[in-house]
C-alpha cells in the first residue's frame, strides 16, 4: 500500500475527526466547569443542524449567516435548559445527570420529528465549496479542508479564550474551586450558564457544519454522543487538549480501520478506549479530580 494512500486516508480521517472534536469540546468544557455529564449534548448537535438547515436550506440565507443564527438559537435553548433543568441537578450524582439529560434526548428527538417531520433532509452544497483540490494526486473535497480549518481554528480560539482572556481565567478559577471564586465575588451561577451556552454552541457548530454533506434527521445526535463520550474520556475529562487529541485519535484511527481491517472497524474505538483507560485511568491528558 503506497505512502500517498496512507497519508490521504489519514487526511480524510482528520476531516471526519473535526465533527467529533467540536461535539467533544463542548462536552468536556461543560464537565470540566460544571461537573455535569450532558447526555443531551448530542441533541444540541442535532438542533444546531436543524436550525442551520432551516435558515440555509429552507429560508435560503447564506451558509455563514445560517450557521451563526443556528448557534444563537441553540444557545438560547441551552440557556433555558441550563437554568431550569441542569441547575437543580448539578450537585447530584452523575447517574442522575445522565438520566435527566437522557430524558432530554428523547424529548428533543421527538420534538424535532414533530416539527420537521421524520424525513431526512439535505440542503445543496454552496458554490464556493463545491469540487475538490488535488492532494497527493487525488482530489480532496474543498469542504473537508474547510471543516479541518474550522476545527483547528476553534481549538485555537478556545485556547486563547481560556488561557489568555480575563473571562477564561475566571472560568478556570471557578472550575478549580467554586466556593473560593464565589467568595471572591464571581457570579458563579451566571458563569455556569455562560459556559453551558458555550458548550452547546460548539455542539451546534458541529451539527451545522455537517448540513451540506450530511443528512439532517431526528436522532442523528444520539449516534454521535457515545463516540463523543469516548473521546472526552480517553482524552481526559475536562481537558480541551485531551478532547482534541482524542477526537483526532478516534477519527484518524477508525479511518485507517476502514482501509486496513474493515471487518473489525466497528469494535476499534471501544478497544482504543479500553486500552487507554487501563493504561492511563484518567485519560491521556486527565488529572484525578477530587
Amino acid at each position, binding site marked *: 500500500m503506497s505512502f500517498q494512500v496512507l497519508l490521504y486516508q489519514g487526511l480524510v480521517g482528520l476531516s471526519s475527526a473535526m465533527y467529533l472534536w467540536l461535539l467533544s469540546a463542548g462536552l468536556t468544557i461543560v464537565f470540566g466547569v460544571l461537573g455535569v*455529564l450532558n447526555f443531551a449534548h448530542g441533541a444540541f448537535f442535532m438542533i444546531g443542524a436543524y436550525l442551520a438547515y432551516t435558515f440555509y436550506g429552507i429560508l435560503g440565507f447564506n451558509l455563514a449567516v445560517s450557521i451563526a443564527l443556528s448557534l444563537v438559537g441553540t444557545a438560547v435553548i441551552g440557556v433555558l435548559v441550563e437554568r431550569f*433543568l441542569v441547575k*437543580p*441537578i448539578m450537585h*447530584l*450524582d*452523575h*447517574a*442522575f445527570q*445522565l*438520566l*435527566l439529560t*437522557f*430524558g*432530554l*434526548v*428523547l*424529548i428533543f*428527538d*421527538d*420534538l424535532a*420529528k*414533530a416539527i420537521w417531520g421524520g424525513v431526512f433532509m439535505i440542503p445543496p452544497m454552496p458554490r464556493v465549496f463545491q469540487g475538490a483540490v488535488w492532494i497527493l494526486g487525488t482530489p480532496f473535497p474543498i469542504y473537508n479542508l474547510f471543516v479541518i480549518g474550522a476545527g483547528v481554528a476553534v481549538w485555537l480560539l478556545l485556547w486563547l479564550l481560556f488561557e489568555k482572556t480575563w473571562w477564561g481565567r475566571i472560568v478556570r478559577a471557578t472550575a478549580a474551586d467554586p466556593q473560593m471564586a464565589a467568595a471572591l465575588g464571581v457570579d458563579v451561577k451566571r458563569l455556569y450558564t455562560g459556559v453551558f451556552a458555550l458548550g452547546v454552541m460548539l455542539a451546534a457548530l458541529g451539527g451545522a457544519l455537517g448540513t451540506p454533506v450530511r443528512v439532517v434527521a431526528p436522532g442523528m445526535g444520539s449516534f454521535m454522543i*457515545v463516540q463523543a*463520550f*469516548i473521546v472526552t*474520556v480517553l482524552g481526559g*475529562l475536562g481537558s480541551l487538549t485531551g478532547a482534541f487529541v482524542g477526537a483526532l485519535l478516534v477519527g484518524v484511527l477508525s479511518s485507517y480501520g476502514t482501509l486496513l481491517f474493515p*471487518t*473489525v472497524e*466497528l*469494535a476499534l474505538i*471501544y*478497544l482504543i*478506549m*479500553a486500552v487507554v*483507560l*487501563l493504561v492511563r*485511568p*484518567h485519560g491521556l491528558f486527565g488529572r484525578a479530580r*477530587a
Partner: protein
Amino acid sequence: MKAGPAPQAAATGAARIVYGLALVILLVLPFVSSTYTQYLVIHMMMLAIYALGFNLLFGYTGLLSFGQAAFYGIGAYVCAGILLRYPSLLAGILGGVAAAAAVALIIGLLSVRHTRIYFTMLTLAFGMLVYSVLWKWRAVTGGDDGLVGIPRAPLDFFGLAVIPVRTVTSFYFFVLAVTLVALFVLHRIVHSPFGLSLQGIRDSEVRSQFVGVHVRKHRLLAFIIAGAYAGLAGALLAPLESAVTPVISHWSHSGDAVLVTLLGGVRAFFGPAIGAVLFVVIRELVVRITEYWQLVMGIIVVVLVLGFRGGMAQAVMDGWQRWVVHGLAQRQPPVPAQVQAPAPVGQAQARVERGEEP
C-alpha cells in the same frame, strides 16, 4: 442516592401482607388474563432480575455500570446456542448464567480498579466491545439477523423429571419460579456480612480498607454477581422470544437497567423490581396512546429526576409513613435528641469531609 440497609422491622405484618398479595396475584394471573398480559409480566420479571442485579452494584456498592447489557447479551446468546444444539432448558439457562459470570470475572478484573465515572465509561467500552463481537462474529452469532428458532425446550432435570414449558403460560410459571429464587438469594446476599461490607465500600472505600475489608475483591464479587443476574435475565429471553439479536447488548439496554432502577428507587431492596413493573406498564400505555412515546417517556424521566429522586418506592414510602405507619405503633426508633442539637461546627465539617466521598 445511596441504599440504606433495610431497617430493623424487616418482616412486619404489613410486609407479609403485601408480599403475600403480590405472590397470590402472580399465581392467579395466568388464569384470569390474556397470554399477552402474561407475556408482559414475564418481561417485568426478567427486567426485575436484570435491574436488581445491577442495583447490587449501583445502590449497594456504589459502582455505576453502563455495560450490564453485555452480560445480558452473553447470557442470551449462550443459552440460545445451547438450546439450538441440546434441547434442555436447564442446561441453557445454567450455561448462559455461567458464561455471563465468567465474562464478568474478566471484565471485572480490569474494571473494578477504577471508580466513579471512569468505571462507568470502562464498562461502557467493554459492553460495546461485546456488542460489536455479537454483531460481527457472523459465523457464530448470525450477525444482526441473530439466532432464530430457539426452541422453548422442556425443563429436563437430568432425566429425573421432564416438565414441558411450550406455552406462554407454562413458561410464565417457570420464569416466576426462577424470579422468586433469584430474589430470595439476592435478598440474603444484601443482608449478609458480605452485603454489609459492600455498603461499607460504597460509603467509604478508605475506611473499608482500614477495617480489614479487601475492597477490590469484594467489588469484583459484586460485579460478578450482577453479571450473573444480567446473564440469567438474558438466558430467559432466548427461549421466550425464540430469537436473539445483538441489540440486546447495546449500551442503550444497559441504560434501561439504570432507568428502571432509578424509576423504582435505589434505596429499597425491591425498588428495581417496582421500577421494572412501572417501566413496562408506562411504556405499554404510552405506546397505545401516541406515536410520540419518546416524548412522553422523556418528560416522565425528567420529572422523575427533578421531583422524585428517591424513585417511586421512596415517593410511596413517604406517603406510607405519613398515612399508615403513624396510624400504627411507632416502628422507627425515636430520633435521638442530640441529632436535633448537633455541634454546628462538627456538622458542617463532617458534611464538607463527606463531600470528598463520591
